[in-house]
């Protein structure tokens, strides 16, 4: 059995999760501080969650394809995103981002307002409050969001096949490999990939539940 889909998937999911982690948290922070355009920003950030992945993939193709502005610009440096390993990462980022964003936003919003008010009157800068108070106090939820984003990135199929294609050893992820195997009538191979995906996803969900139910504790006993 060719193992490359596992590594391509893990590589794409891990890199995508790292980027989504930072993007998601900062977008959440940005969005909760908005007053008027909050609804618009929120809608935009959540859109990839509700759009069919093929639509996301199509839009990415339009945005990054050889005829697009970005595509032409990158091509002048001999970089082509479409049908490359980078494309698998980009697809994973886009589809996992809303999950990270929404969990982070919920977690940051739940931090006691009074704590933030007091921190301000004590002279802590907004960025310090964000890094030293808001993030640590929503740590469990943020980690839960990260795991969720990772699981989503790992299972990404629709956008990936649109923008990255199905090139074995290059862009063929596990989810795509299942599709290919079924298409080729190779049930046995499909079962193997399905088994691996189910195990990884299930393990992620157990980890997620541990963080969400607060079994992993940080500050003293009982929490605050």
């Amino acid at each position, binding site marked *: 059995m060719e193992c490359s889909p596992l590594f391509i998937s893990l590589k794409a999911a891990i890199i995508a999760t790292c980027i989504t982690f930072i993007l998601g948290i900062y977008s959440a922070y940005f969005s909760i501080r908005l007053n008027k355009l909050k609804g618009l920003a929120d809608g935009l950030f959540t859109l990839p969650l509700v759009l069919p992945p093929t639509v996301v993939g199509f839009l990415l193709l339009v945005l990054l394809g050889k005829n697009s502005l970005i595509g032409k610009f990158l091509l002048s440096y001999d970089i082509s995103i479409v049908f490359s390993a980078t494309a698998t990462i980009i697809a994973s980022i886009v589809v996992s981002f809303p999950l990270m964003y929404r969990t982070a936003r919920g977690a940051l919003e739940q931090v006691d307002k009074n704590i933030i008010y007091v921190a301000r009157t004590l002279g802590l800068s907004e960025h310090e409050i964000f890094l*030293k108070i808001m993030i640590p106090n929503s740590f469990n939820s943020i980690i839960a969001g990260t795991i969720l984003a990772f699981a989503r990135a790992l299972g990404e199929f629709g956008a990936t096949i649109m923008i990255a294609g199905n090139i074995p050893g290059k862009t063929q992820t596990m989810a795509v490999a299942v599709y290919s195997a079924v298409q080729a009538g190779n049930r046995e191979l499909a079962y193997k990939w399905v088994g691996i995906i189910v195990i990884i996803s299930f393990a992620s969900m157990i980890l997620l539940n541990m963080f969400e139910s607060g079994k992993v504790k940080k500050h003293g006993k*009982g929490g605050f």
Partner: protein
Amino acid sequence: MEKGVFKILYVNIKKKFKDFQLNVEFESKDEVLALLGSSGCGKSMTLKCIAGVEKPDSGQIILNGRTLYDSSKKINLCPQKRKVGLLFQNYALFPNMTLEQNILMGIPKNHPDKLGLLKEKIESFSLQGLEKKYPSQLSGGQQQRVALARMLVNSPELILLDEPFSALDTYLRWQLEQELVSTLKDYKGTSLFVSHNRDEVYRISNRIAIMKDGKIETISSKKDLFKNPSSMNGAILTGCENISRAKKIGEKRILALDWNLELECDESVLDNIEYVGIRAHHIDHCNDSIYDNHFNLNIIDFIEDLFNKIVILSSNGNAPLYIKLSKEDFKDLNINSKLDISIHKKNILLFYC
């Protein structure tokens, strides 16, 4: 308009939110000023505007000659620069930090001897040995002391206390109140104290502002307020049990409409009299008709309190009158029997519209 330059704190702000209009103006010198009002009257919002975590629509806030907020000059200092301390009911300690990290957060970054100051405060608030504990591992009293220490190391020019005791049980409340009072005594500056609890306000503050529907009705020293509340809201908030609609019927006489009693007053009654108030403990039990305002009323019911009993009286089905008697006086009273009472002229509170 350079009002307030020589005052310690001058506040004049307006803010509209939903269908509520906040419109307060007051000054405060080196004292503890209480804002007393029922929930939703805008007292917490006033504090938040002064702290800078909420923005008023218009007005001015001046602290020790520094303009914190001035809508006409487009000045709105961020909370970080206002030098104002906030103390909340839940103390708002940073749950992810230990006791000493919490206090360190309050120490200004350019302070020359952070650890020295930290050690000094930990000692003066008797928090030794707890330095590495997290807030969730501290008792309510210890949490309050950490919050006070964290606030005071920041050397604020004004302290804002937002219902600091409302979540506590009676015993703990009393203890923490004593600690807070002694801390405030040592503090050189103005404190604003927000509460809906009249007893607490009376014990802690020097002056009291009565707030209702986003406005300050009166500001007076606490002695004056409890003796002679000038508004009916003030009377209710300071715990006046008996209030009735009233009508003038003579130079110094009124008719309390709800009780159907004619009352003789100490002062001349104005025509626009609206309500009359009598505190339950100002009604005496007596047998002699030589006293002021002597009545013989039916006993309808009793309410038992910790140290005294409240007797509910009425004349022929009119609105009830509450009187407080010590358990001694109370011995041989029965429901449906009659009771002689008198109300001293000077204890009748008149409210005009």
